[in-house]
């Protein structure tokens, strides 16, 4: 029996995925449930298991290729000599080396093929002018690293960077610029954030939070929880404080879409996690109803998943507010771009020992600067200020974070 392998639809909005890895080679034996290939969407990477046992054959999908969902990327066959479907039936284009047994082409298939070829450029083929190829070879430049400026994206001579002796800075070991198209995840970031920054009238409120009380509370808590293997981070406390403040000021816990403002009373906080390939925002759901320890556990699990590239679209869906924390770096304060359709984002700086005046006397206290970015279409400055003051009060008087916990 022949089982087609298709590009899976891994989320409601997913229309195409990039095939980033085959775990098996053409002709290799596959056992149902084994990892077979990896798909990267604009959100994350996903390992896909074999849905049948047999031999991997007729691999059409090439690594690096972006393929529409439900299109066939290969087959699992019970036997090596079973006849695979006609190439024309495989809903994939542009690959000469498909291992499909092709009988004499049918006229209709032959007629249909060139049209398909023209709509899909196989990602493995680099379009470059002969001169560009020659120059790239002479200069030791990898053509696949270049973006073509010629007709139809053809790489022309002008796109091949000068290197070495030909370079204006001859004599100095210089590294030529490398160009490559934005990855799926960066494209998503680019599109969403450009849209946000260009269309949302952001306003920014900054405050400094005295962390004098919460620092010892956290230390005490962690000492007690150490036996359970749980460690509460400042960020967990910040998530909890933000969740409670949002519960009290739900106008900040809203989504603005197409002139419709939807206020949410459950708080789902996205935490921005920076990965090498880009930013992902897993969501801690019902953060207002979870205690600090539950938030700590969930947050840690999500961050680990993010670093492993295993976040599912569901892990990243449904956020009503976002926290971006650069506290682990020596960033005192910064302003974040709103993650639409949300209307607010908190940017958390590092905790710094700061000299302050307390009742006329100088004291050194740990201070954390936070910035709220808010969408002025949805909320006004005073409302944002009240929310931020509530957030500040919760962290400065941290017993409030633990109410109902004991």
């Amino acid at each position, binding site marked *: 029996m022949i089982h087609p392998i298709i590009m899976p639809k891994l989320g409601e909005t997913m229309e195409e995925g990039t095939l980033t890895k085959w775990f098996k080679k053409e002709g290799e034996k596959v056992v149902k449930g084994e990892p077979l290939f990896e798909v990267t969407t604009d959100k994350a990477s996903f390992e896909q298991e074999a849905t049948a046992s047999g031999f991997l054959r007729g691999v059409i999908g090439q690594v690096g290729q972006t393929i529409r969902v439900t299109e066939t990327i290969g087959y699992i066959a019970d036997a090596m000599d079973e006849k695979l479907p006609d190439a024309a039936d495989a809903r994939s284009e542009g690959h000469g080396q498909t291992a499909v047994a092709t009988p004499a082409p049918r006229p209709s298939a032959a007629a249909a093929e060139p049209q398909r070829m023209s709509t899909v450029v196989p990602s493995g083929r680099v379009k470059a002018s*002969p*001169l560009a*190829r*020659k120059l790239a070879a002479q200069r030791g430049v990898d053509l696949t690293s270049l973006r073509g400026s010629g007709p139809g994206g053809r790489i*022309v*001579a*002008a796109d091949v960077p000068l290197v070495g002796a030909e370079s204006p800075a001859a004599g100095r070991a210089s590294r030529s610029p490398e160009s490559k198209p934005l990855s799926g995840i960066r494209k998503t970031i680019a599109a969403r954030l450009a849209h946000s920054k260009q269309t949302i009238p952001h306003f920014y409120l900054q405050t400094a939070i005295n962390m004098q009380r919460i620092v010892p509370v956290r230390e005490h808590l962690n000492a007690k929880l150490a036996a359970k293997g749980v460690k509460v981070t400042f960020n967990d406390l910040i998530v909890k404080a933000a969740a409670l403040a949002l519960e009290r000021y739900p106008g900040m816990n809203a989504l603005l879409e197409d002139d419709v403002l939807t206020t949410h009373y459950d708080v789902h906080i996205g935490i921005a996690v920076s990965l090498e390939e880009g930013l992902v925002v897993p969501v801690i759901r019902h953060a207002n109803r979870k205690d600090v320890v539950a938030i700590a556990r969930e947050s840690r699990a999500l961050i680990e998943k993010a670093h492993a590239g295993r976040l599912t679209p569901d892990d990243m869906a449904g956020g009503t507010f976002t926290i971006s924390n650069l506290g682990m770096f020596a960033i005192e304060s910064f302003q974040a771009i709103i993650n639409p359709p949300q209307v607010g984002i908190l940017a958390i700086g590092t905790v710094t020992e700061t000299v302050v005046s307390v009742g006329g006397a100088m004291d050194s206290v740990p201070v954390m600067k936070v910035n709220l970015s808010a969408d002025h279409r949805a909320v006004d400055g005073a409302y944002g200020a009240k929310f931020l003051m509530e957030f500040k009060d919760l962290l400065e008087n941290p017993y409030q974070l633990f109410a109902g916990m004991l």
Partner: protein
Amino acid sequence: MKEITYWKAINEALAEEMTRDESVVLMGEDIAVYGGAYAVTRGLYEKFGGERVRDTAISEAAIVGAGLGAALTGLRPVVEIMYVDFMGIAMDQLNNQVAKIRYMFGGKCTVPLVIRTEGGAGRTLGAHHSQSLEAWFMHIPGIKVVMPSTPYDAKGLLKSAIREDNPIMFIEHKMLYNTKGAVPEEEYTIPIGVADVKRTGTDITIVAYSRSLLRSLEAAKELEKEGISAEVVDPRTLLPLDIDTIATSVRKTHRVLTVSEDCKTGGAGAEISMQIIERCFDDLDAPPVRLAGADVPMPKAPNLEAMAIPSTEDIVREAKAVLGK
């Protein structure tokens, strides 16, 4: 240097060669008393007499055949075919006799025959009197095909053609006869099979001949206004083609556009482009592009006739397209 017209330059070449060499004789329809349909031979009958400047019957096969016979028996005839369109009638004489005889007789004879004719669109003469058939002749081993674009080239090339011991198709353009250009007072010849860089440039090579050469030079001026430096190469002789000069240019500019009036399919531009690809593939930064006449019988209506051949605007547009602009 004096400025003379294209027809006058050809007329001078004929007169000078007839003066220099008594074996040079002219034959053709209405070339003697009337002076030629485009008046190229005017005054020659009066000067050289009816023995050497002969009107013929209206039979192109007879004209070319008589020319061949005269050439084989010691004369250097220059025969005129009024329109290149009429060469169809003389094609067996040309293809099977004129072009083959020296080869088939082991080189024991020579064929110093020049067939002068003219082609091209522009006078709304319709499908029978406006064709550009040079590609037919490029397909015949044993002859040479010369297509001058300027008075200077026409005179120098015709003088060389008359002195050449092999048959030559010398194709003029009806719209060039009254164009003017500088021609030296002193005697000169231009070797057959040598192209001429009519304008130097760095961004694109335009290969054009005959009337299309003039339009290409106009286009190059337009392109210069847009910061595009076009080199214009005139092959002058299509067979043999001076591919070395063309290739040298293409290796410099890395891009090429051919411009000609003949039908695009199977035309001169196809041959030139392919020879460029054979020589310069690794130097090309864009596919060679052919701009040529439409694959249609030449329309009689002036507006349609103009559309059927490359205009200066077409050349500007296509050159920019080659450059991705």
